[in-house]
Each structure stands twice: as C-alpha cells, then as structure tokens.
C-alpha cells in the first residue's frame, strides 16, 4: 500500500552552538487515513522531525516523499505551494493572525492558493467552522476568543485547503482536559469521516494511546515503530 507521507533515512545536524546529531536515520511511512502520534521526551527531536516532515525545515539529508512524490531538494517556492496544497498544520500555540477576523484567518491559506473563487472559499470556511461548532465566532477578531476556540480556528484553517495530511505539534499541549478531549474528538472524526491522515507530536499519553499507532523516539532515533 502506498504512503501519504514517507521518510527515508532522514538525518539532521544542529551546527550551533556545536555539532549535534539530532535525527539519526529516521525512516517510516504514514498510510492514508492513519492517525499516528509521535511520542518521546523533550529534546528527543520529535518536533524537529515534524518540521522536516512539514517541509518547513529543509536543512537535512535523506529523502521525503509526499503522496509518492519526492519533495526533498525542491525550491522554497515549490515547497510553499506543496505545503498549502497538501499539508495542514496545527501548532501548540494557536498562532492566528490576531488582527484578522476568525473567518479571514481560516480563508487566508485558500486565498493564497487561489484555486477557488472567493465565494467558494468563504462557503468552505463557513462549513469548516460549522463542523467545529464555532460558526458563531466567524466575524470576531481572533484575539477576542478563548484559547480552546482559537485552537479550533487553527484546525479549521489547517483544513481549508483539503490537505492530504494534518500535522500537529502538541496541539493539546496548551489546553485543559476538556478542550483537549474536544480536539482529540475532532481529529478522530476527521479521520473516520473524511479519511484524513494525521500525524501528531504529543506528550499526552492518554491522547496517544487512543490513536492508531504510536512512534516512540529517544535521542533522535525511533525506538518503537
């Protein structure tokens, strides 16, 4: 079976302050519709790995395939396009553009991609917000809503371009248990209803246990597949 995302022999060094081998021969793949978590202690390189997989970090050796297409070595411009087309990203902090309204935040990546008309994008954005039960916030400024709501807006933004895979860097790390549960349920539903692949880095063991697969990392290497 083909992978949505596949990493082959990924190695990365930090050069400052001194040479440090962060990631050692990382190879794995994620199938379509699979909900995977990466776990490990702080500093084991899991976030670093995630940023490489998201194509934002290009300073590594090895090969990265997205939908069976080699993305390693592509220009920043192409990577920007690939990122907006195929990858949705949710961060630990919400990272919304606080001066824009919720709706504008959600619509922005789609406007950039410009594959649909403005009316269609707005309709999509409303649909996503509705799905996450935050439609009533659409015209609020992003800095006026609560933390749990912000995270849901961030998820809506990640989904607006119908990505092939959704990545999260401790998306529940900053939320209380109620909101964490909420986010988990959203992820679960996305996987079941839409067959979305998910890759989430987390510290939360309860969260991880309920996913399809756990990749455990230690000292820059995968110890349990």
């Amino acid at each position, binding site marked *: 079976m083909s992978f949505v995302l596949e990493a082959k022999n990924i190695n990365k060094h930090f050069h400052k302050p001194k040479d440090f081998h962060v990631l050692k021969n990382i190879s794995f793949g994620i199938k379509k519709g699979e909900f995977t978590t990466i776990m490990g202690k702080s500093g084991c390189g899991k*976030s670093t790995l995630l*940023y490489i997989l*998201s194509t*934002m*970090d290009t300073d590594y050796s090895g090969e990265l395939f997205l939908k069976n297409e080699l993305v390693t070595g592509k220009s*920043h*411009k192409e990577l*920007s*396009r690939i*990122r*907006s*087309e195929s990858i949705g*990203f949710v*961060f630990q*902090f919400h*990272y*919304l*553009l606080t*001066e*824009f309204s919720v709706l*504008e935040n959600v619509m*922005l*990546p789609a*406007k*950039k*991609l*410009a594959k649909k008309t403005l009316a269609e994008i707005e309709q999509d954005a409303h649909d996503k917000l509705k799905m996450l039960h935050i439609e009533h916030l659409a015209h609020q400024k992003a800095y006026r809503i609560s933390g749990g709501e912000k995270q849901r807006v961030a998820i809506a*933004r990640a989904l607006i*371009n119908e990505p092939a895979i959704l990545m999260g*860097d401790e998306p529940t790390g900053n939320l209380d248990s109620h909101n964490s549960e909420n986010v988990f349920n959203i992820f679960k539903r996305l996987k079941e209803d839409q067959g979305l692949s998910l890759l989430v880095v987390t510290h939360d063991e309860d969260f991880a246990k309920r996913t399809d697969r756990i990749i455990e990392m230690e000292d820059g290497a995968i110890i349990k597949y």
Partner: protein
Amino acid sequence: MINWKVILGIAKTHLLTKMKSTVTATLGVTFGIGAYITLVSFMTGLNAMLDDLVLNQTPHIHLYNEIRPSDKQPVDLLGNVANPLNVVHSIKPKQSQKKIHNALPILDYLKKNPQVKGATPQLRAQIFYLSGPIELGGNLVGVDIMEEVRLSNIQDNIVAGTPEALENNDNGILLGSGLADKMSLAVGDRVQISTVDGTIFPLKIVGIYQSGIAEIDNVQSFANLKTVQRILGKAENYVTDINIKLNNIADAEPLARKLEKQFKTKAVDINEANAQFETGSDIRNMITYAVSITLLIVAGFGIYNILNMLIYEKMKDIAILKATGFSGNDVQHIFMSQAMIIGLIGGVLGLIIGFVLSKLIDQTPFETEALPTITTFPVNYNIAYYGIGISFALISTFVAGYLPSNRAKKIDPVAILRGT
C-alpha cells in the same frame, strides 16, 4: 503567481491596525516631501527673481567700441630687425571715435540673422543734471524705446508714466528714480541737463525709471535716441552701443566672438558680463539641492525605522504566513506594498501640503524699494519639482522598505514557531 488581492488585503489590515505607526511613517514622508516642495519652489523662485533682476539689465550681446591702446604699436611695424626688443613708454589709448562705425548697416545685418531676436541701438552720453546751482553727474541713454519694451523688461521698471509717452515726446526723459528723489521731481516737471560741452537743454519728465539697483537709478535716465543725438549735435548714425537679444542664450558666446571679428568692435556676451553673478547663482542652487536632499533622506530613514519596527512586531505573523503556504516572496511583497502605500499616500499629501504652503508664501506681501515690480514673495511652480518629489517619495520608500522586507523574506518560520 502573485496573488495581489490577498497580499494587498493583508498589507491593508496591517496598516490599519497599526494606525499610529502608519500615520507617523506617512507624516514623515509628507513633511519631507512637503518641505522639499515648499523650499525648492521658494528658493528657485527667489533665484529666478534675482537672476532676472541682474540678467535682464544685461543684453545677451553688447557691442561697443572700447577705448584701449592698439595691440600693434608703430615700432612693431618695423619688420626686418633681428631679435628686436621694443620698449615703448607712456602708451596712450588709440585715437578713435566712441561711435560704432557703420552702426546702421550692422543693425540691419543683425536683424536679418535668424539667431537674433532683436537688436537695439543705444547712445550713451555723459551729462549733468542741473538743479539750481547743483550739478549731478550722470548719463543719458538714447534708446529706441518701443524696441526696448519688446526685447527687455524695461516696462516693468517704469514706475510712473508709460514708454509710449516717451516715444511720443521729442523732449521727453525717463528720469532715474534716485535722481527724481534727489531733485524732488515728478512726472510732468521739467529738468535741465547739460552736456559735457556746457550746452543746456530742458527736458520734460514723462516717466520715472527704477531698476532696483541704486547705482543705476542714481545716475541713469533714458530719452529717445534722436533726442540724445540732437543734444550731442551728432548725426543719425551716431550710435555708441548695440544691444542684441538672442532667441537662444546659449548662442551668445560664439556669436559674440564672430561679431567681434566681423565688425572690429568689442562684443561682450552675457556670461562674460555676469561671471560673478553666475557663481552666486550656482552656489544658491547647490544649497537648495543640498537642503532638499537632506530633507528627503531624513524622511527615508523615518520610513526605514518604522517598517523595521513593524516587521519586528510581526515576526510571528510572518512565520505563520510562511507555515500556511505563503512563500518568502509573498511575505516580501506584503511588506513592500505597505512601504509603497505609505510612500504614495505620504508623497501625494506632501505634494498637496507643499503646494498649499507655496501658495501661502506666494500671497505673503513682500515689498521692497529695490524691486518695484515685486509685491509678494516669488514662488516657482515648476511641475518638474512635483515630479521629483513624488518619484523620490516612491524611490526612498522602496529602498527603505526593501531592506526590512528582505529580512522578513528570509525569516525562518521554524525558528520562530518553536519559540527558540
């Protein structure tokens, strides 16, 4: 592909939410450009006025006979002597007339020359103005007054009476304003003048002439050419000076050299006559440019600072934009368009403020004895300065925006999002 609509939308939101910085930056440009326009309009206006004041007194080419010693003394004509060393003591100027030989044919010739806009004959006579027992030394210039009106701005300098009155009165005189003050004379009065030989003539004052230069106004008066010829007892072809006005002032120097050779008279072109004045003019212009450039550069630095701050504040936004699929170039375009919007709005406002201030200065009364025709400060509304102003606003904001936006383009989103 660049999606300008989205980019401009983001730029607009940034500018509107950071209203304070936006206004500060825009005002920086506005004041820079406004001050530039005001200053340059006012200073070039003043310069042009001063130029006119002096240059319009001077013809483009002035022909006259110079009193000077002969270049070749008689002893030089003694040819066949080996290694001569001639010593001549007490050289005297060559005996010749003050009048230009063949003045009338020369005038006709000049008037046919396509480079020449006009040529006027003048007769300068040393005279005394008589006021009771007091004799004031001075000179009387015989002119073809209607030609002078056509070719120079003499009309602006006639503060009382009209040039036509002089034309129509055979015994008329346009008296220098300084002389009129000294002798307490006004239009309609009579003044007696005496030639060097002692002949006395009464003349009727038909106008007062004020050039604004005291040295001239205290000694010089104008009368018709024929009147002066009659006073001196000379024939109709007796002309001491020919003033030439050209269509193109740049022809003055070569044409002067040519006429000098052709007619064996002295020909002085305008640059030669006003060499000192040119230097003063150049230096004033240099000061104008130096001040303007300083103003514009200061405005440019203001924009640079504010944009730099803005980008520093927006570091996270930039990282988020990059993470959600915006490329480095998109981010650069966002900040560049902010800079250009600030530059354009600030620049246009600056032009308007500059124009309004220029208008204000233009309305300000400025009356001085020296300049009879000037009632308000002179302002030069040259459209080119407005062009330069807006171009500089755009160029400086472009440069000031380019450096910070280039930094924004290179920001690594990973480093910022991980909070390290």
